C-alpha cells in the first residue's frame, strides 16, 4: 500500500529509482504502459526502462518509431479511453517536435470537453546539460509547461524524489510532466523499497535555516546545499527548499520561509530570463514584500543556447560557486 514519506532503507541510484518506480507501477496496474523511442528492447538510452520489456512484454513496453507527435498523440488517445500511459520523450528538447499534442491537445482536452475527459498521462523526459551534448540535447524547458493550464510539472532532485514523484505522477489523473536530470542519474541516496508517493504540489524543506532562503529545482538543490555549507562561513544559516512540483507551485511553503529569513534566491539550471525563478520571485514579492530585506535573487543559465565545448558549457551551467557568488553579491559582500 501507499505510504507517504516512508522511511529510507537502502541506497539506490537515481536511474534505478526511476526504473523501480516504473516496474512497481506496472505490476500494480495492468492499464499502465510505457511508450517511447528505444524504451523497450534497448531499455532507453538512459537505462530508465531497462528490463521492463522482459518483464512486461512488448505490448506494455512499446518501442515506437522516432515520431514524437505520434507518440504523444498515442498517449493522449490511450489515456482518454481508459489506459494510464507513460510516454517517454528521450530528451526534453524533443518535446519541441510535439508541442501541439502537449499544449493544445493534452493540456486542454479536459477543459474543452467541459470536464468530461480524464487524462492520466505521464510524460517522462530528461533535461539538463553538462554532458557536452550541445544546444538540442541539454535544455531545461520546464518553465514552458508551467505556463500552460492543464499540465502539472514535477522536477525530482534526487533518487528519493525520482521514485516518489514518478509514482505520484503516474497515479495522478492529470497530465504530469516528469522532468528528470541526466547528470543526476548516477546519484545515490536512500530509497524505500516499497511504493510511496511524494504528494504533488508540496515543497520540501531540505535544509532548515534561519536567515536566508534558497529555492532550488532539480540538480540545483544539491548545488544549493553545497553553497549553504560554504555560506555558513559567512555566518549565514541558509534554508534550502526543493519545490519538487513546479506546477502546481507550493507558494505557501516558500513564502513562509522568506517571512522567516527575509532574504531569498532562486536557483535553477534553465535560462534565467523567463525561467520559473521569475515567477517564484514575483510571488514572493507579492506575498511577502514587507518582509524582504533585499531584492529576491535569481541564479540561472545565461541567455544563450547550451554550448558544446566543455569549457563553454562549464561557463554556462550554474553551480554551487555561482550560487555562493550571487548570494554574496546580493548581500554586498562580494
Amino acid at each position: 500500500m501507499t505510504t507517504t514519506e516512508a522511511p529510507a532503507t537502502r541506497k539506490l541510484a537515481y536511474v534505478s529509482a526511476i526504473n523501480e518506480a516504473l516496474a512497481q507501477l506496472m505490476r500494480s496496474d495492468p492499464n499502465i504502459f510505457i511508450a517511447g523511442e528505444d524504451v523497450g528492447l534497448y531499455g532507453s538510452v538512459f537505462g530508465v526502462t531497462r528490463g521492463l520489456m522482459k518483464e512486461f512484454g512488448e505490448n506494455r513496453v512499446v518501442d515506437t518509431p522516432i515520431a514524437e507527435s505520434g507518440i504523444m498523440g498515442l498517449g493522449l488517445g490511450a489515456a482518454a479511453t481508459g489506459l494510464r500511459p507513460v510516454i517517454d520523450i528521450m530528451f526534453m528538447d524533443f518535446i519541441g517536435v510535439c508541442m501541439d499534442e502537449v499544449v493544445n491537445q493534452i493540456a486542454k482536452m479536459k477543459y474543452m470537453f467541459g470536464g468530461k475527459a480524464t487524462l492520466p498521462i505521464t510524460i517522462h523526459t530528461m533535461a539538463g546539460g553538462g554532458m557536452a551534448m550541445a544546444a538540442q540535447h541539454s535544455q531545461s524547458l520546464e518553465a514552458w509547461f508551467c505556463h500552460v493550464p492543464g499540465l502539472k510539472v514535477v522536477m525530482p532532485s534526487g533518487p528519493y524524489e525520482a521514485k516518489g514523484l514518478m509514482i505520484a505522477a503516474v497515479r495522478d489523473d492529470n497530465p504530469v510532466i516528469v522532468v528528470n536530470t541526466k547528470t543526476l542519474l548516477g546519484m545515490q541516496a536512500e530509497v524505500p523499497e516499497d511504493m510511496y508517493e511524494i504528494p504533488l504540489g508540496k515543497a520540501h524543506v531540505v535544509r532548515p535555516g534561519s536567515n536566508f532562503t534558497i529555492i532550488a529545482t532539480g540538480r540545483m538543490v544539491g548545488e544549493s546545499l553545497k553553497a549553504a555549507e560554504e555560506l555558513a562561513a559567512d555566518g549565514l544559516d541558509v534554508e534550502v527548499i526543493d519545490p519538487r512540483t513546479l506546477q502546481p507551485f507550493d507558494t505557501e511553503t516558500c513564502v513562509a520561509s522568506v517571512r522567516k529569513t527575509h532574504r531569498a534566491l532562486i536557483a535553477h539550471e534553465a535560462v534565467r530570463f523567463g525561467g520559473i525563478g521569475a515567477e517564484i520571485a514575483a510571488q514572493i514579492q507579492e506575498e511577502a514584500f514587507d518582509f524582504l530585506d533585499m531584492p529576491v535573487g535569481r541564479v540561472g543559465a545565461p541567455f544563450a543556447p547550451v554550448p558544446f565545448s566543455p569549457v563553454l558549457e562549464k561557463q554556462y551551467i550554474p553551480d554551487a560557486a555561482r550560487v555562493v557568488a550571487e548570494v554574496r553579491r546580493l548581500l554586498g559582500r562580494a
Partner: protein
Amino acid sequence: MDISNDTLLDLHHRMVRIRLFEEEAGKLQESGKVPGALHLYVGEEAVAAGVMSHLSAEDQITSTHRGHGHLVAKGGDLRKMYAELYGRSTGYCKGKGGSMHISDLDLGMLGANGIVGAGPPIAIGAAFSNKYRGTDRVTICFFGDGASNEGTFHEAANMAALFKLPVVFVCENNGFGEFTSQARHQAIKDVADRAAGYGMPGIITDGMDVLAVYEAAGEAIARARRGAGPSLLECKTYRFFDHVGVRGMGVVYREDAEVLEWRKRDPITLFESRLEEMGLLTTEAAAQVRERILFEIREAIAFAEASPFPAEGALMEDIYTVRGAAR
C-alpha cells in the same frame, strides 16, 4: 452489398439530420445569436453517415474543425449541441469548447479539433487502447486533404500500420485546405496514394454517394475489427459552404460553376431519388422526415436559448481532475 431497408432509411435520416442541423446553425450564426466561427459540413453528409452507420457508441472517432456532422451522425443530442454553440452551461462542453471542440466522450467522440491534423495521433492512441484491452472496437480518424500534409498524419499512419492498429483513416477530400485548393497545396490529387507509403491499403470512393461510402467503410471497418490492420479510405466530396460560415459562392478561391456542378451531385438528393425509385421513400415521406427533424431542431434551439450561461465559478473548473473524482 447487404443492406436492410431500415439501414437505408437510417442513412437518409442521418444525412438529413446533419444538413438541417448545419443549415440552422448557419442561420443562427449569421443572425448573431451564435458567437465564434462555424465550419459547416454541408455537402459532405454522405461520408459521416456512411461511416458512422457501422459504429456503436463504443467505437471512437476523432473529428476535425468541421465536426458537427460527425457528432450528429454518431448520435449526438441536438439540444446539447446547439447549447454548446450558444455557449451555454447545458452544452456538451458546458460552453467551454464551442463549435470547434464539440464532443461527447460517451459517444466515443474524441473531439472536434481546432488544430488541423491533430486527430490522427489521438486516433491511433484510442486504437492502441482498444487493441491493448482486447476489444474489437474500432477507431475512425476523419481528416481532410489539408491535414494530409501535416506531419502528424504521416507519423500516425506509420505507427498504425507498424502496430497493426484497428483504425480507419477516412480522408474527407473536399478539394480545399481552408481557402487553398488542393492543386495549390499538394502535388498529388489522390490522398489514397499516400497509404502505400505506409504499408496499408488505400482506396478511393465517391464521397457524394452514401452507399459507396457505406460499402467501402464497412469493409475497412470489418478489416480493422478482425485485426487485419489499418486502411485509408479517401472519400471525394465537396464543401458546399465556405471554409468558415455559410457563404460558398462568389469567393476568390473557387469558381461558382464548380460549386454548382458539385451541387448537382448533392448526396441527399441523389440518395432520395434512389430511395424513391426503390419505393422506400416518397416525396411526402421525405418532407415528413424533414419536418420531424426540424421539429427536433426547433425544440433544441429553444432549449439552448432558455439555458443559462456558465456560472462565474465555471471559468476555473474542469482544468484538472481532482483526485477521487475520476471514473
